[in-house]
């Protein structure tokens, strides 16, 4: 197991190095001078030269990369060309909102998908199964941003139950925090839940059709014992993987939903940095998001290897 974990960590470091090259190249592939572009009409020769020197843009490109990488490893991602604020500070300000939304959405997804998936599989072919499967098929086709707009229309404008957008810190006002979190979490969580549902259903269905399940039934166990002792322990393995992957996407891929709900997360910061052409911030955001994504994948693989020893020897 140790060898497997070390191998996976090595692969993650390699992937991160690759991502770092792409992220670093970003600033050099942009047509024109990124500092001049970011400063725009507020151009000032002194500020311009200071920012260029701070970003190391006056150095040879290989030196620039290694200096940038060395700084990034120590948590220094440079300063925003627009505001002059360290990129790390900006990212850390946005991180709590992103993590909160990701876990809240995952909670919604799991609460819906796991029980429904298990029941659908056990009662395969029933009306409930058809209804749940059909709903999930429609749900995976719904763009999250459209679902979000429709929820705002229903819950905020028509029913006036929940605020349409914004973010309140938990420590400021827990009730308002929950009220503001509800709609974005529902928007992303239900779509994520429909993907997880499909995996739960098919995993449980597969385990239900195995010989060991038939044996368990044949030796006279109750249906409840068959499900919880024999079916579920085997069905969990693929479910863990898809839940982990979904968490990775929730932490990294809900940019549009963050925009709709004015949620101050990393995705919205990345988008704003594109609009402002503030490339050091974009570099930092992409690097951090990719890091989180790879880290979650690593954890998923390790858990997978632990649950299913065959994986370790692949």
């Amino acid at each position: 197991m140790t060898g497997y974990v070390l191998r996976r960590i090595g692969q993650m470091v390699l992937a991160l190095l690759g991502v770092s090259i792409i992220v670093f190249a970003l600033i050099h592939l942009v047509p024109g001078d990124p500092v001049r572009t970011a400063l725009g009409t507020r151009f000032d020769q002194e500020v311009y030269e200071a920012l260029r020197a701070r970003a190391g843009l006056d150095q040879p490109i290989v030196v620039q990369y290694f200096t940038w990488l060395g700084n990034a490893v120590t948590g220094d991602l440079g300063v925003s060309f627009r505001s002059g604020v360290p990129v790390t500070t900006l990212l850390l300000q946005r991180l709590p909102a992103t993590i909160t939304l990701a876990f809240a959405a995952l909670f919604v997804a799991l609460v819906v998908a796991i029980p429904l998936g298990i029941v659908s599989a056990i009662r395969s072919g029933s009306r409930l199964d058809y209804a749940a499967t059909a709903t999930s098929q429609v749900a995976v086709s719904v763009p999250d941003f459209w679902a979000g707009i429709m929820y705002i229309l229903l819950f905020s404008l028509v029913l006036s139950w929940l605020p349409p957008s914004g973010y309140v810190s938990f420590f400021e006002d827990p009730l308002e925090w929950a009220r503001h979190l509800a709609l974005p979490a529902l928007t992303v969580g239900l779509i994520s839940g429909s993907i997880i549902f499909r995996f739960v259903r098919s995993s449980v269905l597969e385990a239900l059709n195995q010989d060991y399940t038939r044996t368990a039934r044949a030796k006279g166990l109750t249906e409840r014992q068959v499900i919880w002792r024999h079916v579920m322990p085997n069905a969990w393995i693929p479910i863990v993987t898809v839940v982990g992957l979904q968490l990775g996407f929730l932490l990294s891929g809900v940019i549009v939903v963050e925009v709709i709900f004015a949620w101050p997360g990393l995705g919205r910061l990345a988008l704003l940095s594109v609009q402002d052409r503030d490339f050091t911030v974009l570099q930092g955001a992409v690097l951090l998001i990719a890091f989180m994504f790879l880290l979650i994948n690593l954890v998923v693989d390790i858990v997978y290897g632990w649950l299913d020893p065959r994986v370790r020897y692949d």
Partner: protein
Amino acid sequence: MTSGDEGLARGAQASDPSHDAGAPIAEHRSRTHATVETVLRNRLAVAGLVILAVLVLAAIIGPWVIPYEINEIDIANRLTGPSTDHWFGTDELGRDVFSRVVVGARVSLVVGFVAVGIALILGVPIGLISGFYGGATDSTLMRFMDILFSLPAILLAIAILAVLGPGIVNAMIAIGIVYTPIFARITRGSVLTIRQSVFVRAAESLGATNNRILRTHILPNVMAPIIVQTSLSLAFAILAEAALSFLGLGVQPPEPAWGRMLAEGRSFFEQAPWMAIFPGLAIVLTVMAFNFVGDGLRDALDPQQRSVIESRGVG
């Protein structure tokens, strides 16, 4: 080409070189026939095909049959609700939402097809070369694909558009690049299996060039998962285009794109919810149609494949 070589080429198509020269063609035809039959027995897949046929028709003849010009401004009738005059209502400039949704089908389908075309053109050869040659070529290419795959789809597309600049063509390129690793992985996986087949080894021993083996013996036999993935990727490409246009990075005004129309509708949400509802429904319907067809094709062609893209999501 020798006659033996020709026979092998046909044999490759049927995955079984032991048949006589005529049989593989008949088998190939009957397999295609069986696939079509299986897809047509799947009611959801048929529903998807019907929706797609309507959409394609709308995309082709839409501009000539729509009741109003897509950019015809009518301030007197701005933000009016759905009626017999304007089935889907009007927008903030009095433009007919129905006409814009119909013409928007063209933009979505074109972007979807071109983007997935780019992903196919890049991904399939990478997968073929990687799986066929193996070794250092394989490791290098696949590590690069893994790196691209490790970046969330929409974030990677946004980063590419930050470099290329916003616009419809760049959006197609960005989405194409984002989905390249999926095709490369799927193709490579299939090539690794086919590579060991008797008919490939036979072709090698007959002295066929690598290029020829790849084109005539391997490619036709790895098409099934690629076709399935193409249909599912079209759904995701359309979603991605809508997301990018919604963020202002894809199709630029006044061109009617569904994602863009949704974004514009957001500002007039309270007065005119139809501005956001109908373009959104059009996206849902299109994506659903491609998903249904993709699922139907998967059941018919490649039941073992669990889509890589399915768990990937679009943000």
